[in-house]
């Protein structure tokens, strides 16, 4: 790879096919959701089966979702866009054409800001329908059209990336964006988020792009990394042998981590695109007036949370979905000292999220009331609870949701003792009961301070304010 990069500049452009989160398909009222439990062709009707006489009608919600992505990606949303027919024969394509967009897509241009800085330019965002699936059984092939007609957006980047890292960061950022805004379930195993990777190499000093190969339908980030890596090295080898790269569509084989040729440019289809006469110009005026619900940018939010003192893992969790982010925001709203947000978030990760794994299917807001979590930290801040009793309080609240944190703390003796004379009395008692150790301490064996702290904690069940214990113990030991 080192040799390659000294001589060549890789250029990568990526098309992402992302299924939109809608109740129904793009042009009919069949349920969109596909699962392995469905019978083949269970979610089909005359429209998505391509029966004679059936006509498409647009799913307005899908259009809204597509506009949301386009807006989040700073793509300019066309008030009027067109649907076109892309024509080819394939068993999983019931009408003999796919309804898609080409010349007037829903979004033109745009860019995706990467968390590490920099950005990737978009060419366009278009709405289109997905095809069905083919199941091969022995000598015959069966067609399942449950997926046929489900709504997709195709996010087409410009050839604007020049390293594997950048390409991966781009696809992961898009993935985070669509999941955060619930534009897509982006379930990669279900094929809800698929990537076509266009890769070319050009001599370092050349301004012209090299001949590209497109690797179709890659459905995991790991595979994408391996496929780009393999493809770059493959092209490098060809160029080094003074051979020409053939413009090709290739597939990725996850078993061998290699790419293989599917078809050459000469065999490319003539798709005979034309405006779909069954669908009038798509007027997005009404959707554009609707609330796009895009106030929070997860990449921006991540930066702010890191600044607020959260570590990367915690930040990633709280910017993974809007629910998680809103949860933290709700905590923050109830937190008296905003400096404690990092601590609160870390506490949530270790004490609530990971301890309550059996309840992982609960929505985050159901897991633990955010105002109660903030209350715990307000009490810690005020010295009423210690970090140790905070955990206990959280545990007890979890078992008895609905109670006030302070009541729980009081009822279970979790309140930190702040009364100096009482603490002094107990410490004096501990010292009196351990004269030998006290003598050794005062003779210079200062390590024994830990022993006294332990004894005090035992007697007080950890309810004494640690800072007061330190202060008073020091004073009495050195008296």
């Amino acid at each position, binding site marked *: 790879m080192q040799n390659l990069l000294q001589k060549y500049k890789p250029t990568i452009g990526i098309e992402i096919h992302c299924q939109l989160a809608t109740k129904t398909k793009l042009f009919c009222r069949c349920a969109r959701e596909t699962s392995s439990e469905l019978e083949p062709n269970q979610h089909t009707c005359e429209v998505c089966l391509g029966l004679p006489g059936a006509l498409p009608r647009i799913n307005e919600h899908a259009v809204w979702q597509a506009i949301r992505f386009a807006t989040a990606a700073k793509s300019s949303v066309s008030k009027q866009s067109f649907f076109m027919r892309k024509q080819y024969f394939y068993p999983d394509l019931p009408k003999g054409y796919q309804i898609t967009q080409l010349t007037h897509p829903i979004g033109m241009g745009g860019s995706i800001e990467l968390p590490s800085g920099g950005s990737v330019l978009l060419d366009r965002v278009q709405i289109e329908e997905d095809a069905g699936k083919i199941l091969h059984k022995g000598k015959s092939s069966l067609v399942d059209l449950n997926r046929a007609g489900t709504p997709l957006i195709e996010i087409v980047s410009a050839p604007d990336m020049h390293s594997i890292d950048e390409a991966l960061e781009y696809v992961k950022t898009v993935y985070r964006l669509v999941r955060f805004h619930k534009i897509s379930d982006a379930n990669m195993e279900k094929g809800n988020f698929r990537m076509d990777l266009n890769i070319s190499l050009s001599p370092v000093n050349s301004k012209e792009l090299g001949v590209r190969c497109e690797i179709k339908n890659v459905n995991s980030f790991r595979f994408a990394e391996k496929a780009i890596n393999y493809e770059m090295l493959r092209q490098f080898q060809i160029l080094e042998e003074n051979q020409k790269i053939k413009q090709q569509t290739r597939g990725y084989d996850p078993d061998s981590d290699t790419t293989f040729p599917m078809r050459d440019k000469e065999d490319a289809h003539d798709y005979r*695109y034309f405006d779909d006469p069954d669908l009038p110009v798509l007027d997005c005026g009404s959707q554009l007036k609707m609330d796009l619900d895009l106030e929070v940018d997860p990449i921006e939010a991540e930066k702010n949370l890191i600044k607020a003192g959260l570590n990367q893992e915690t930040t990633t969790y709280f910017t993974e979905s809007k629910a998680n982010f809103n949860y933290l925001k709700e905590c923050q709203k109830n937190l008296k000292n905003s400096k404690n947000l990092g601590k609160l978030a870390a506490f949530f990760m270790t004490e609530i999220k990971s301890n309550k794994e059996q309840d992982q299917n609960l929505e985050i807001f159901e897991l633990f009331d955010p105002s109660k979590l903030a209350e715990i930290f307000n009490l810690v801040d005020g010295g009423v609870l210690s970090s140790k009793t905070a955990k206990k309080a959280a545990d007890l609240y979890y078992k008895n949701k609905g109670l006030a944190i302070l009541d729980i703390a009081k009822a279970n003796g979790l309140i930190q003792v702040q009364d100096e004379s009482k603490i002094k009395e107990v410490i004096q008692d501990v010292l009196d009961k351990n004269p030998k150790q006290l003598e050794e301490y005062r003779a210079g064996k200062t390590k024994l301070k830990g022993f006294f702290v332990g004894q005090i904690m035992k007697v007080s069940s950890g309810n004494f304010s640690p800072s007061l214990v330190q202060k008073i113990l020091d004073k009495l030991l050195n008296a």
Partner: protein
Amino acid sequence: MKRTIAEIAKSVEKQGVRKTILDGLVDYENQSKNLNFSTFYDKNKVEEQIAELEKRLQAGEDLPLAGVTVGVKDNIQIKGWPTSCASNMLKGYISSFDADVIEKLKVAGAIFIAKLNMDEFAMGSSTEHSCFGVVKNPADTSRVAGGSSGGSAAAVASGALDVSLGSDTGGSIRQPAAFCGVYGFKPSYGTVSRHGLVSYGSSLDQIGPITNNINDIMVLHSIMSGYDDRDSTSIASQYKQIHKPVYCLLDEASLEGCDKDIIENYQSWANKIKENFETKTINLDFLKDSIAIYYLIATAEVSSNLAKFDGVRYGNRATEFEGYEDLVVKSRTNGFGSEVKRRIILGNFVLSAGYSDKYYKRAKQIRVLFKEKLQTILGENGILLTPTSPTPAFKIGENTGDPMKMYLSDLYTVFLNLVGFPGVSIPSSYNKTKLPLGLQFVSNHLTDDFLLKSVSELETKCISGGK
């Protein structure tokens, strides 16, 4: 037996719906055999519908079409009935849903008697391109009934059925109506839902009625039209109230190429109209280009619309094949007839890379210009009068070897589909050999009610004492 919807309603009142329907059908089987207008007829289905109708009438439902026998062109779907489009590709295909117009007619109490013969997938002007064989003209059985809705026109003209439905992509309702001597109406594009109509040219297709009089056209259109959300090109329209039509009459140049009989008939009507109404004379020379534009657009759309017939899910499927491609090629090769194949190939050509800009896209641009030009000519209250066809019905087999000649016979009809305007063909007279001659009336987009009312009024004034 020819009767109007109003007469049928009286008959139902007098002698009940069963007798009214059966009376209407006395001639049906005989005529159907002679003229070959039907692709599907099942007595049991008729019986079932009569029984259902009797129940609904007893329950007090108001059914304006009770007793009316309706024939349906075999590209409009009725749930549970075969829809063949007169093609081997779809022979034996049973529809799983009702077309929107069928739903609406059912609500109004219509009963469906038969599916009617047509040119394969509605491509043709003579109903000679049907896997069920040619439909004969009731006025002269050695002649064609026109097309593509030849079966629909012949069934009504022979009196075998009261009314029928056709589809019109480039004149397929109006031309056979003219050839057979009946009334045929192509509504404004978007006013009648295409849901359930097997598409030919999606941007051109409209469903419309064929009847024995103008009033029945009005009755049926008011029932069949209306917004349907299953068709995205459907329009929810409020017709404007327009009074006082100005009739736009063709100058001599615009009648060039028509038969002498046709020209004479046209002039005699023009004179009658001049006596009774305000008129102006116009030139429609630009219409000559409309044939080329029409065939570019219609074939492009149909090449795509017929791609779904691949032998995989339904319809004709090759029995022996190796692999998917072979299955598609064989199923389509032996499923489609020659005229359909010709238009699919033409359509694929005009859409292919390198030619699309030159042909298809330019045709679309010119189409827009046509619309602007015609809108200017007609204005809000203009009604254009043209012959429906340059000739009366021709002999069976006369034009089959010459597709260009056949295409040119659509001169006065195709432009209407390109611009989406409404047009009605009425039987105006006969030539010396007793062949019916049709006249076509055209008005601006979404002025359908105005057009039909005006034509009705004109008939009363110009034909003294009515017909």
